[in-house]
């Protein structure tokens, strides 16, 4: 039972992050590989503010989102000028630089040793300790994220964002400020990813830079692609599949050293299979990026 609840919390955390990436990669058509860094910024902000300044959980959640958004404003304004594969490479480099900062700024982040003993969150006097309480908080955050993205996608802002994905030149010729839309969606997405990071930090009560590596970015992107880019529920499905799959493999009874490698093989096979038979993802309606679809 506690394993199921643990998986539920993990799915909630990853679903929030995948939803935030979907805003940029699915609806905006910008394949960002730096999402784990923003998720890490949220986790580190929450950890440091609760440990050193004794803040409550909700203020640290907000602070993490704001800080991550500020970093995204500064960096997004630069990297979003690049197109397509150059953007992918730039966000890849960005991810490596940001993780390197987490690893090497030892005075603040304690470097590769990570930050341990992050206290349990307190929300309006409610001290969260049990795993099912974390599942409830996670579900609330996930619901909030889903609501936000649904509203955003149906709003005029979301319409223009999707128009930019389909044809940037056309959107520009209609008088839309393409850079503004890209930066705003990138910033919103970074803030939302930080919310997932905050929950991760208080749930595990230990974080280290290894959890926010490029592999994590790719895993999150895989969730978006498998679940279905540019669909609201797609990332949730993708997160559920990629979080639960390794746990199911555990019950098959393979030795752990084989199972660990097999996990990578299965991620790869999943993505390849999805690309072959359902290029729009399990829940997706739009083709991913610009390839395929109506051309």
């Amino acid at each position, binding site marked *: 039972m506690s394993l199921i609840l643990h998986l539920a919390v993990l799915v909630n955390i990853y679903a929030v992050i995948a939803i935030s990436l979907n805003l940029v990669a699915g609806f905006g058509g910008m394949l960002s590989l730096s999402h784990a860094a923003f998720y890490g910024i949220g986790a580190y902000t929450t950890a440091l503010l609760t440990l050193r300044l004794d803040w409550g959980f909700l203020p640290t959640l907000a602070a993490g989102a704001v800080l991550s958004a500020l970093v995204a404003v500064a960096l997004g304004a*630069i*990297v979003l000028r*690049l*197109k397509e594969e*150059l953007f992918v490479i*730039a966000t890849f480099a960005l991810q490596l630089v940001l993780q390197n900062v987490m*690893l*090497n700024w030892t005075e603040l982040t304690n470097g590769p040793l990570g930050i341990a003993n992050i206290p349990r969150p307190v929300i309006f006097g409610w001290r969260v300790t049990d795993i099912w309480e974390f599942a409830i908080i996670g579900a609330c955050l996930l619901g909030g994220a889903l609501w936000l993205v649904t509203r955003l996608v149906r709003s005029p802002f979301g319409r223009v964002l999707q128009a930019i994905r389909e044809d940037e030149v056309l959107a520009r010729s209609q008088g839309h400020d393409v850079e503004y839309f890209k930066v705003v969606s990138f910033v919103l997405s970074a803030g939302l990813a930080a919310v997932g990071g905050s929950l991760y930090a208080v749930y595990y009560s230990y974080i280290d830079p290894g959890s926010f590596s490029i592999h994590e970015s790719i895993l999150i992107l895989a969730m978006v692609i498998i679940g279905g880019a540019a669909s609201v529920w797609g990332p949730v499905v993708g997160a559920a599949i990629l979080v639960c799959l390794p746990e199911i493999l555990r019950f098959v009874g393979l030795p752990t050293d084989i199972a660990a490698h097999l996990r990578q093989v299965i991620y790869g096979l999943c993505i390849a299979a999805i690309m072959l038979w359902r290029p729009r993802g399990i829940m997706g309606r739009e083709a991913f990026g610009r390839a395929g679809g109506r051309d």
Partner: protein
Amino acid sequence: MLAATAVLIGGLSLAGVVVGSLAVAIARHVATVWLPSQWQDSITFFLLLALLLFRPYGLLGKPTRRTGI
């Protein structure tokens, strides 16, 4: 990863690869004069970012329609 960075920095040609590799190597080691050596990777990828912004086709590459400008 460093090799890929070197290729991207130099540009996609034989001379570009040589120049890119030299640039990456020199930058990584000269940087240790001012910064502790664990920042080497940051320097390398920061260099890549800066280059993508100003010369997305690499130091010796030629601008094409794909890379723009």
